[in-house]
């Protein structure tokens, strides 16, 4: 394989495609963690979103309806996570793990109920449209004819950046994650902010799941979501808990996967399994080289206890 415009475009196209679900999930992780709630259940929320998106998309024939419903399904999971971790002040990691059990469990359960006992949905015929329509562009430029979800992921990131740094909401939610007591004394409702953030976290994760089953793979199946949620969490840490950092980190992981695909198709003597490890090995190397003791939001993972004795 020689490096030329075609390969670059190919790599770019695959990178954008693979990173899209992760970008949604990463924005979900950012908004929750910056507000001070660890959401390790992103993976489970993505799975339920992936199923809901495919199922609704299949039955209604409208991929956008599926996409929205997927978000709502994720948001419901977010609501449960918020209830447990904000109101009940439960251990957020344990709760997240519970989400990761319930999410896929429920998705497969419902799949069996609605699709004649199969753990996968029927292929969704009406997919999310491409940016330049389905007839596409000419030649290798068609690699840039990305899914609309990819564009939406970018728009979402830009909106998130604006919210974080350009609005009062952003100031509030960052304050809540850094110093909830300070925010509380200034009349900011810490519980409310955290609830909203965690629900949106679920919403974005659900959208990320649907971005997978409504655009990339033909249908929902048990392996549709396999680790993207966790990688998104790693991306957020790598991106230092910022929307843009998370976005770029996701692109990097997407690029690692694109390399896997591109190299695997070539005449390289590297076994595909070893190539498949690449994104994960890369993550660890990056963590070792660059992140180290990263600066998480100060109150991340710490339940805010209003009535506690100071």
């Amino acid at each position: 394989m020689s490096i030329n415009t075609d390969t670059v475009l190919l790599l770019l196209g695959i990178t954008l495609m693979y990173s899209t679900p992760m970008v949604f999930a990463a924005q979900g992780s950012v908004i929750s963690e910056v507000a001070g709630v660890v959401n390790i259940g992103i993976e489970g929320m993505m799975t339920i979103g992936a199923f809901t998106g495919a199922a609704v998309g299949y039955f209604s024939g409208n991929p956008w309806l599926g996409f929205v419903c997927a978000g709502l399904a994720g948001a419901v999971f977010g609501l449960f996570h918020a209830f447990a971790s904000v109101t009940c002040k439960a251990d957020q990691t344990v709760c997240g793990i519970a989400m990761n059990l319930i999410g896929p469990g429920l998705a497969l359960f419902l799949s069996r109920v609605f699709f004649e006992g199969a753990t996968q949905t029927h292929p969704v015929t009406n997919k999310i449209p491409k940016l330049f329509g389905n007839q596409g562009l000419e030649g290798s430029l068609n690699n840039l004819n990305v899914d609309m979800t990819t564009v939406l992921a970018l728009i979402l990131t830009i909106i998130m950046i604006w919210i974080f740094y350009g609005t009062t909401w952003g100031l509030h939610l960052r304050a809540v994650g850094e110093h909830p007591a300070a925010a509380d004394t200034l009349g900011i409702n810490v519980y409310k902010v955290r609830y909203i953030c965690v629900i949106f976290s679920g919403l974005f994760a659900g959208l990320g799941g649907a971005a997978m089953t409504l655009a990339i793979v033909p249908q929902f199946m048990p392996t549709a979501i396999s680790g993207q949620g966790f990688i998104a969490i790693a991306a957020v840490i790598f991106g230092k808990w910022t929307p843009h950092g998370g976005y770029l980190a996701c692109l990097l992981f997407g690029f690692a996967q694109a390399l896997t695909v591109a190299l695997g198709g070539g005449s390289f003597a590297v076994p595909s399994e070893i190539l498949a490890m690449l994104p994960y090995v890369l993550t660890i190397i990056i963590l070792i080289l660059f992140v180290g003791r990263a600066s998480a939001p100060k109150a991340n993972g710490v339940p805010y206890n209003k009535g506690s004795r100071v």
Partner: protein
Amino acid sequence: MSLRKRFFSNPFVLTIIAIVLGFCVAGLILLAAGYPPVESIRTLVQSMIGRPKDISSVIIRSTPIIFTGLGVAFAIKTGLFNIGAEGQYVMGCVVATMVGSMLDFPKPVAILMVVISAMLISALYAGFVGLLKAQLGIHEVISGIMLNWISLYFSNWICGLDFFHKPGTIGMYPVNPCTYTMILPAWKRTEAGEAFMEQYPVLKETLGRTDVNAGFLVAVIAALIITHLLNRTRKGYELRAVGQNIHAARFAGINVNRSIVHAMMISGALCGLGAAFYVTGQSPHTVSTLSAFENVGFNGLSVAFIAFSSPIGCLFAGLLFGGLLYGGAGLQSKVGAPTEIINIVIGVIVFFCALSYLIPRFVDRRDAARLSKKRKKQMQKEMKKGGSNVN
């Protein structure tokens, strides 16, 4: 502390409450999906413990997750969240199979070699996570997740190597019989053995028809040993101190970094031990190419949470989990309800375990409210008595 509060603070009681709630939620979901909830759950329980064979199967099924549960629980006790148990278990399985398929030694030696190699690789794999945390501050959850995936592809890669791949299958060559850890695996296949078991239906049901193996016994012993290690030894004191308060431990002169690495290695070794006994004790005695995780390590997380990270508790929580997994298959074949309901049950149980600490507080609040009511009444009485003095 009131008696009621003490009762409701007992982890065992809390677990029972969580389990009951888990089944209630599952019942509701089944009902909504159009399956008879009561009958489904009865079928589930029946397929878990209905026959001696079932009980035996449940124990066999549970053994690996008890080990990973022990590993995770040990890590939690030492302040670490070993989400990498999955990868450590997978590595243990691969290495145990590699070693076991090449060995031809007398039984005890062969078993020992398989067990030690699996424990060693898993301990090193986990120790790497500990090292990253201790030296660089990389959170064990992140590195653990990455190493899980790496182990999955590593396992698949080994499966595909000519040297290990058994032609005509999707797996490796199984381990040699000299490493088997089943109880009397050869004898029960002999005529004498079959004739003997014919006299005892229970034996025939269990020993004869399932891979009864030494794994569960070893798990019990392991649980006892790590309980002792944690609570009664110098090392355990250090590990727990680091787990509960790393700053105070460092201040008191405990080598915190070394403790983290050691704790992770012990946790990993437990997962590896489980892997060794899975490969040597249960058919198909080998590892196959995986398309996704088999969740033995992840289920260990749930087991540890449900057990409130008590090693002894892990034995019971593991049995429950294994039972549900085994019974879930029966549920699907008999009632037709999807077996995934089991994951929902477990998830909900874990969810309520996370919330369960609220219960003692709730009891406390009710006690307090009652107390204050009493106080108010008393005050009112006093007011009435000395009514004229006030104002």
